[in-house]
């Protein structure tokens, strides 16, 4: 083989691997991206049942109900709209009524959001960044969310995994 042929082999091989990677990424993007919505966005866009998304908002005070065997229901609100959420499992340490939450799952036929993961991933202002941004955009940002913490805010993250049926495993 000449130097030129060798170089062409290497360049050809590189392009093949790159093309493979690009194909894999595009394919993966089509199937596995999860979008973030607030209850208002869900109400406006009529998300179809079964489509997975992340729901973010505030846990409506007084809406938390614990059922049998770790089943819980609560409402996620963002000022304009509310959405009932059903979850089975252990809620994260930082889950509280009136504070921010992000749940991942899909709507069922009755319009209830079946969550298989509930994240309360936030700093001391008790507001996940995604939720805070969404609320600010809608003009529902109350200043007292931001002023609860003095000095630098330290975060904590906890995650709850839902019931085995809903999970990927």
């Amino acid at each position, binding site marked *: *083989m000449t*130097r030129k042929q*060798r170089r062409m*082999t*290497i360049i050809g*091989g*590189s392009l093949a*691997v*790159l093309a*493979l*990677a690009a194909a*894999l*990424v595009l*394919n*993966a*993007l089509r*199937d*596995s*991206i*999860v*979008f*973030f919505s607030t209850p208002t966005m869900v109400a406006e866009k009529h998300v179809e049942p079964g489509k997975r998304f*992340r729901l973010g908002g505030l846990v409506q005070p007084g809406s938390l109900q*614990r059922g049998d*065997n*770790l089943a819980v229901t609560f409402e996620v609100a963002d000022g304009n709209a509310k959405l009932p959420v059903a979850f089975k*499992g*252990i*809620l994260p*340490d*930082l889950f509280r009524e009136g504070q921010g939450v992000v749940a991942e799952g899909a709507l069922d036929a009755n319009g209830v959001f079946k969550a298989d993961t509930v994240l309360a*991933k*936030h*700093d001391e202002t008790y507001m*996940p*960044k*995604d939720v805070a*941004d*969404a609320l600010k955009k809608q003009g529902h940002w109350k200043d007292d969310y931001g002023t609860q913490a003095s*000095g*630098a*805010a*330290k*975060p*904590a*993250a*906890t*995650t*709850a*995994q839902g*019931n*085995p049926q809903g*999970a*990927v*495993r």
Partner: protein
Amino acid sequence: MIAESGHYALVLALALALIQSVVPLIGARLGDAALMNVARSSALAQLLFVGASFTALVMLHVNSDFSVANVYENSHSMKPLLYKITGVWGNHEGSMLLWVSILALFGGLVASFGNNLPLSLRAHVLAVQAWVASAFYLFILMTSNPFLRIASPPIEGRDLNPVLQDIGLAVHPPMLYLGYVGFSISFSFAIASLMEGRIDAAWARWVRPWTLVAWIFLTLGIAMGSYWAYYELGWGGWWFWDPVENASLMPWLAGTALLHSALVMEKRNALKVWTILLSILTFSLSLLGTFLVRSGVITSVHAFATDPTRGVFILLILCLFIGGSLSLFAGRATSLKQGGLFAPISREGALVLNNLLLTVACAVVLFGTLYPLAMEMLADFKMSVGAPFYNLSFAPLFALLLLAVPFGPMLAWKRGDLLGVMQRLLAAGVAGLVVVAIVWAWVRGGSALAPLAIGLGVFVIAGAVTDLVERTGLVRLPFATVLHRARGLPRSAWGTAFAHAGLGVALIGIVCETTWNSEYIATMKPNETAHVAGYDLKLDGLFQRQGPNYREMIAEFKISRDGEAVTVMTPSKRSFTTRGSSTTEAALLTRGASQLYVSLGDATAEGAIAVRIYHKPLVLLIWWGPVLMAFGGVLSLSDRRLRVGAPKPARAKQRLQPAE
């Protein structure tokens, strides 16, 4: 007084770094040895002053001096001593100080062990180190000063984030930083050689040990972080594809590629331009990681504080260094001479394939990390890219890489014999296929992916063993000869085998854990029994205990298997009064490489408690794999050819010390 001294020492370190950035370069231009030697003394002095500054912050934390804002916000007088010390880097300011301390440590090491480097190369390398250091000293002093005082000192501190009050904080960040920052050395070497316009095989021999050291620490740091998340967050997850984890994985992938391409350069004087580029990219990814974690663009356990000025400052540093180094590369790379020739099927060819797959896999992770951020900024909608994305994109690429791994070390340099290698790997391939068949039959159907992946893992391990068998002549030759050969085998060959086998071990662990994990989540009352994976867990009772700075509720489980008592497990839930938050302390029972995992949720009014029980088969292999890889790295590092501080050609050394 301590705080002011610490602050002052940091300012002095900045001044020294500024001198070190300029004077050695002038010396190199003028050919003045005295000016070039300024690099050495200033690097050592810089290390001394940063060390003093860091020690000052540690002392402030140990003494619980709450007149310092950093101590007030992250410490508590009742906190155990270990966490008072580790709490130093459990916050933004302190962790940046640790970052620069480690940077100065590496600079000091190059200064003290780099006596055999050409004088002007050492001057250039240390000057580039000092540029990076100056930028980060400025960052700390201008936006994140850890020594700020509070006008009216409070009596008690606000305590450290409870999640961080764990032995993991003592190990994970320093290890990770030793890795991240260690790559600054190969970066500095790359920039230095571009500035000098000279690069050869000796360059690779100097750079490789430093890269290897950084890589070993990064490997262990990532593994440690993963295990920490696994037992601390309370639901047994060990990798989340969180942007912060990706930030550490990307330099690891690029660094692994760099280790391999430097090998080609050292042995065959080829792939020079590519190796230089990889050195630059690896450290750029480390800087990107620092930006992602420290700027607050993402929310995570690692993002301590969100302050926009810090983000902008780090972004500036990032653009300056990445942009500057890549422009220098673009301008100078063509002047570097082309290296040796090799056929596509050869050791070099295999290493090129390794580099190709690693960098492309790294690019996929980079894409997955930045795409959601870019979309949020440009198109204004939010989304998340999680495990499903990486399973479909990163995993196939890595599987391809693993398939190629056993071939690499067996191919000859320059021109290899693929057919011969395939024949020699036949046994390993058969072993892999047999395992696929056994696992397939054992689980009876289900996903074909898991048995195949386990077979791949076995193939990789068997391939590594085959390489050693071939080299020592085990089976073919008499035992005494084999022993003699094994002793004569370069340590780097052993290192390669261990590191490659570690990949297979980790893969098997990952597949077993994700496929056959059993999970039991329920509320339990005292004296109830849960059955998970053959174990019976009887909840004996709940009781309270007072810790140094928390109260904890402990649940006592009697574990038995087939009627025989095994042990008692005591998971607990700690509530920290100062911060009003709680953590979950999981209890782990290790049997071989498998673990039983119990963690607690909330207690209900009727005296019942929510529990999460997992049985995770072979889960420990996930971390034993990286430990094996790191061990392989250490072996390779101890190879005489690469010994840090003794990078002379092995031949000369042997002649000088024949008795060794």
